[in-house]
């Protein structure tokens, strides 16, 4: 059991990265519309985040430098500032969406309107961050989030036409009657969601919070190779369950309530309860990840002390910014804006910031001053370069596709 608990950072990062509310709904929407047709994009994204999270974890374990340190020193203060502005905004919007989403889940469970729950949710988040140990938060949320595996189980239970599912998964383009730009809009946003910058901000800073050093390289790698693919499997479960139950009915999956349906169809009330608990845990995990990542990015750009590994009063500006970010997120939710739409917009912003985050990581992963003999091998560089090319293509295509398709309408 102890060994499993050492791997929760990877799982939590993945859950917060691509099983948060934006992705939950996006996966269900994609499943309801394309079945498993975009599985290749998710696979590509998981490979990408595995490669770059591993590099960033290795860099922080051996040299102590987290990702935003690398961004500022390799790209210079001006470009790093642009990245900071974009990533910070996107991450803040995602945080707002999670807090809104948590309030909605509590409403679904309790019947009490979600507006009541927003401030308590934000306050509870801050209290947990302030008082509870990093490792404890990571382990509890990482493990509880696995409850969304109920969707994958639902697919199994419903005994679908596996041949049809496989057919969807293996087709690398849209169905003949589906518009191509919209297909690629969803492809780009799904890719950006799987590789959002805050995942590597959190994973590398989290590794420092866990006091990873050279001897933890094996654990670090295990975290990556277990956590992100597992996150991918959970995502596919949600998409697949929607594909199996909602696609044949021509139903949409736009609200959280609709997304929960497949679990209910398969397992009744018990299934719904487990799914709601899982969503609650995933969104809380994402809220923790995004609020801390805002603090990490800001502190690491300016050079402040950061992290829960310091006594709170030794990292005053870091804790202050995390608190302000939570307040700002609450304010955003209170404006009544739709959290899901908010994450979609932030995904496009993320897609554009991706190259500015991943290029410095790839460069430093080859620098012997940082890594000594632990620099990338030829295989690592090959994968890294291919993913970089995809990242650049996605960054260039994101805004035009968003405009051309009216955000996937």
């Amino acid at each position, binding site marked *: 059991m102890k060994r499993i608990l050492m791997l929760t950072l990877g799982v939590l990062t993945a859950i917060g990265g691509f099983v948060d509310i934006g992705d939950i709904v996006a996966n269900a929407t994609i499943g309801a519309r394309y079945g498993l047709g975009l599985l290749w994009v998710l696979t590509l994204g998981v490979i990408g985040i595995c490669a770059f999270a591993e590099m960033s974890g290795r860099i922080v374990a051996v*040299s*102590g*430098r987290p990702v935003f*340190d690398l961004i*500022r*020193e390799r790209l*210079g*203060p*001006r470009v*790093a*500032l*642009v990245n*900071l*502005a974009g990533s910070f905004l996107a991450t803040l919007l995602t945080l707002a969406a999670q807090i809104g989403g948590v309030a909605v889940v509590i409403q679904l469970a309790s019947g009490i309107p979600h507006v009541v729950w927003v401030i308590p949710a934000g306050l509870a988040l801050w209290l947990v961050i*302030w*008082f*509870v*140990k*990093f490792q404890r938060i990571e382990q509890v949320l990482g493990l509880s989030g696995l409850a969304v595996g109920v969707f994958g189980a639902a697919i199994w239970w419903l005994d679908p036409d596996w041949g049809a599912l496989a057919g969807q998964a293996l087709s690398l383009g849209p169905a003949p009657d589906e518009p191509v730009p919209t297909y690629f809009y969803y492809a780009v946003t799904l890719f950006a969601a799987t590789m959002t910058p805050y995942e590597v901000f959190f994973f590398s800073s989290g590794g420092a919070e866990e006091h990873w050093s050279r001897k933890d390289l094996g654990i670090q790698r295990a975290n990556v190779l277990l956590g992100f693919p597992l996150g991918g499997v959970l995502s596919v479960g949600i998409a697949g369950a929607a594909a199996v139950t909602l696609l044949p009915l021509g139903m949409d999956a736009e609200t959280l309530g609709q997304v929960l349906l497949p679990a209910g169809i398969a397992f009744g009330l018990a299934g719904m309860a487990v799914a709601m608990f899982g969503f609650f845990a995933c969104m809380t995990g994402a809220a923790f990840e995004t609020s801390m990542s*805002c603090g990490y990015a*800001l*502190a690491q*750009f*300016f*050079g*402040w*002390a*950061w992290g*829960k*590994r*310091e*006594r*709170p*009063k*030794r990292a*005053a*500006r870091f*804790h*202050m*910014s995390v608190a*302000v*970010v939570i307040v700002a997120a609450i304010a955003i939710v209170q404006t009544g804006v739709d959290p899901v739409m908010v994450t979609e917009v932030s995904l496009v912003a993320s897609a554009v910031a991706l190259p500015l985050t991943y290029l410095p990581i790839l460069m430093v992963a080859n620098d012997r*001053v*940082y890594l000594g003999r632990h620099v990338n091998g030829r295989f690592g560089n090959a994968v890294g370069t291919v993913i970089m090319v995809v990242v650049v293509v996605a960054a260039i295509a994101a805004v035009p596709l968003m405009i051309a398709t009216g955000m996937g309408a």
Partner: protein
Amino acid sequence: MNIDWRGLEKIDLGTGLLDRQVNGPKQHPVGKVDDLELTERDGRIEVTALILGTAALRERVPRGFRWLLRAGFLFGGGSDQTRRIGFDQIKVVDSDVEVTSQAAESAESETERRLRRFIARIPGAEDESQ
């Protein structure tokens, strides 16, 4: 002065020294190398000090982007005054710049100190690192 450059013979200031993290003992962050002080001596120009602080950083960011810096201050409690760390206070330069504990003490940001007094009043602020 006796800086351990870990075997380096030459260094490009922009790529290799500027914008690096400055840490005190036990990797406690002090700030970034926001600028460098150059002094002319005997016909040669020598790098004599690290300069830390957002006032120095502002100079290196084009005018159009400076409002972004100010926006960042909103979250972190304000800007920093400029501090100087003489080269004689540097111990090691590899992926970061390690300075002596005296330098780390005296170069600590006033903003951080001020916020610390405020945060120390919240219960739990003294708790062991978590």
